[in-house]
């Protein structure tokens, strides 16, 4: 269905795409690249376990005019109880000024939609846009670059800090059906800054649409960027999201990817440690059910010495869902004293669920300390019996063990309201007893609003303080039959 993209591109580029002149040749070259590459096939090593055919064979049209019927009240489930945080809202890919709130930013901090940044911050865009997210061999990034029009630009001037997290909230509603959006975000944290970014992709309803997002992050000298990515698209949607961070010396990039939505999702988190003394922390949790497919690809490139990286991804797979984790740590010859740890642990809740996990180390320096590993397991029957023998019912026991598995990585989230909310969602996901095996997080608003179950979840989480302290970083004892990764 490349034809539909051709037609849309012809129409879109004819009016300049609302962007400055220097962008036009970039768009054209990116679109050419997309046409040459085509959609990735499973012959491509990085797409070995994920078929993009479902996206390639459907016709998705660009959503150009602002659409959607989203009201501020609809966003309550997605704002972590903090609507006052600086927030840019996009509905069906288009900036929604009436729902956004970036009035009270401290000096030296700019948060704006891309269309406005073309006019007001052209230098920042010229310096950084498309510099990190290369599209030579990434057809979805090429496609995004050809069509980039809306998205967020966050710019923190040197030596400034923002105490409130900045939320970039992408909402799709029923009017997104058969549409595609290409959100393009740029985060620039200049030297000695500290900023927390939330990037959420959520749905109201269960339309079939396609989100193809790219976010570039410049983490300059001694800057710290905490970047939470929440993917709760409609369970009929398709989501491709690429984050490419570039880290200068002594910088720290902390990423958390939480993915429960979409029929098919592919999240790429890439970072390059391009100065000495920096660190990358990439954590994530994916939980899917039914026929969902969730794929995470991470790449940490150690391009300079004396950097560290830490990575923990966990997955809980139920129903006939399919998970993929492909984590690469690449250590350049010059990157001596690299200290890297990577792990991926998966819990399969049903016989039909499947996970393909491939943690990879490629080391070309000789003085490094790197470890990696992956486990796949089921709920430990002995732990289950132990709980039952104390009077805890089978369902409650399973839910506790499953939750405990997820909690170990959720507790890494430093931002308290986000951690709490995600913990509640996780608990609720495994407490939805009335629906039996058919439970599913649709990411719809009404599901969140159910006051009664909400309260039950909250009271469980109260205890969390003690749970967190308890869990430590022990071995995967609730997962039995651990399979060491090669």
């Amino acid at each position, binding site marked *: 269905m490349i034809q539909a993209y051709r037609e849309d591109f012809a129409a879109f580029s004819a009016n300049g795409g609302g962007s400055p002149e220097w962008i036009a040749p970039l768009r054209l070259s990116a679109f050419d690249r997309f046409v040459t590459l085509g959609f990735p096939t499973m012959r491509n090593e990085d797409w070995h376990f994920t078929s993009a055919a479902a996206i390639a064979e459907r016709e998705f049209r660009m959503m150009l005019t602002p659409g959607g019927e989203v009201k501020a009240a609809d966003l309550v489930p997605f704002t972590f109880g903090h609507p006052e945080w600086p927030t840019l809202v996009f509905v069906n890919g288009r900036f929604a000024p009436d729902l956004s709130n970036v009035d009270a930013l401290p000096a030296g901090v700019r948060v704006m939609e891309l269309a406005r940044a073309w006019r007001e911050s052209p230098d920042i865009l010229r310096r950084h846009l498309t510099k990190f997210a290369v599209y030579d061999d990434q057809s979805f990034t090429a496609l995004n670059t050809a069509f980039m029009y809306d998205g967020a630009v966050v710019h923190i001037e040197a030596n400034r800090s923002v105490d409130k997290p900045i939320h970039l909230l992408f909402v799709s509603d029923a009017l997104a059906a058969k549409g595609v959006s290409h959100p393009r975000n740029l985060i620039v944290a200049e030297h000695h800054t500290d900023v927390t970014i939330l990037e959420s992709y959520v749905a109201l309803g269960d339309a079939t649409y396609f989100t193809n997002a790219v976010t570039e992050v410049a983490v300059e000298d001694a800057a710290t960027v905490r970047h939470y990515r929440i993917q709760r698209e409609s369970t009929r949607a398709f989501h491709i999201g690429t984050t490419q961070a570039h880290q200068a010396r002594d910088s720290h990039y902390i990423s958390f990817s939480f993915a429960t939505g979409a029929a098919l999702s592919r999240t790429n988190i890439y970072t390059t440690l391009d100065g000495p003394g920096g660190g990358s922390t990439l954590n994530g949790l994916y939980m899917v059910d039914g026929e969902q497919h969730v794929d995470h690809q991470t790449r940490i490139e150690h391009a300079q010495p004396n950097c560290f990286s830490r990575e923990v991804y966990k997955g809980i797979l139920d129903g006939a869902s399919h998970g993929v984790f492909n984590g690469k740590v690449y250590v350049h010859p010059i990157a001596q004293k690299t200290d890297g740890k990577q792990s991926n642990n998966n819990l399969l809740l049903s016989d039909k669920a499947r996970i393909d996990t491939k943690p990879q180390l490629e080391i070309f320096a000789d003085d490094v300390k790197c470890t990696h590993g992956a486990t796949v397991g089921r709920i430990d029957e002995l732990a289950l*019996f*132990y709980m039952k023998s*104390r009077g*805890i*019912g089978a369902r409650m026991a399973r839910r506790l063990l499953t939750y405990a598995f997820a909690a170990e990585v959720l507790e890494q989230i430093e931002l308290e309201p986000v951690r709490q909310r995600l913990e509640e969602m996780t608990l609720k996901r495994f407490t939805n007893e009335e629906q039996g095996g058919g439970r599913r997080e649709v990411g719809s608003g009404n599901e969140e609003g159910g006051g009664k179950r909400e309260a039950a979840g909250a009271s469980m989480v109260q205890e969390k303080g003690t749970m967190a*302290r*308890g*869990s*430590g970083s*022990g071995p995967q004892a609730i997962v039995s039959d651990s399979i060491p990764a090669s």
Partner: protein
Amino acid sequence: MLQVKNLHAAANGKPILRGIDFSVNEGEVHAVMGPNGSGKSTLAQVIAGHPAYEVTEGQVLYDGKDLLGMQPEERAQAGVFLAFQYPVEIPGVSNSYFLRTAYNEIRKARGLEEADPLDFLEVMAEKLKLVHMNEDMLSRSVNMGFSGGEKKRNEILQMAVLDPRLAILDETDSGLDIDALRIVADGVNKLRRANNSTVVVTHYQRLLNYIVPDRVHVLAGGRIVRSGGKELALELEARGYEWMTEGVPA
């Protein structure tokens, strides 16, 4: 209270219990002794409902009800408690949360109101003293990083909180030094009442110096080869298991 009748059980198709009969009345303490592989731990686990064992014949009645027809959690809710020989580690679930959940699930099953966290803390504070445990043990994950003695004490703590009518202690003494043994035995004795019963499964007579049984049963080859009063344990200690188990197929 507990009647075990002609109980046969197997694991992976291999028979382990070959016809066990004994009864425990309210307020009694029974000791089940026997050499390694005699089936005494299997007996304890079958009563608790361990899924690895299949009951091939016989009956277990608890207050006249068919215990074997109940799920493990139903047995616990009805007042049966097994102190595990090897307590299980559960990362990510704190001891206090685990205990409160168990306590409330049992209360719920009995139609009682659930305890709120503050009330529960009060219950806990008192029980902790019984087994000489510090409060910080509550915030740690269940049995994670506990020493052998701590794990056994944690079992008795759970027993104290859940207040069972029938407690089965599966080799709770093994691996304990004499101080830990005293603490555990002392805890068990303080929990004794006229209307609850205890079955102590042990390899050694040592524990029975502290928890004095009304009856002693000796198991060998999956059968009870002899039953008697507390003096039977002393006799076993003096003469060894061979004295009694000669000629019994393993």
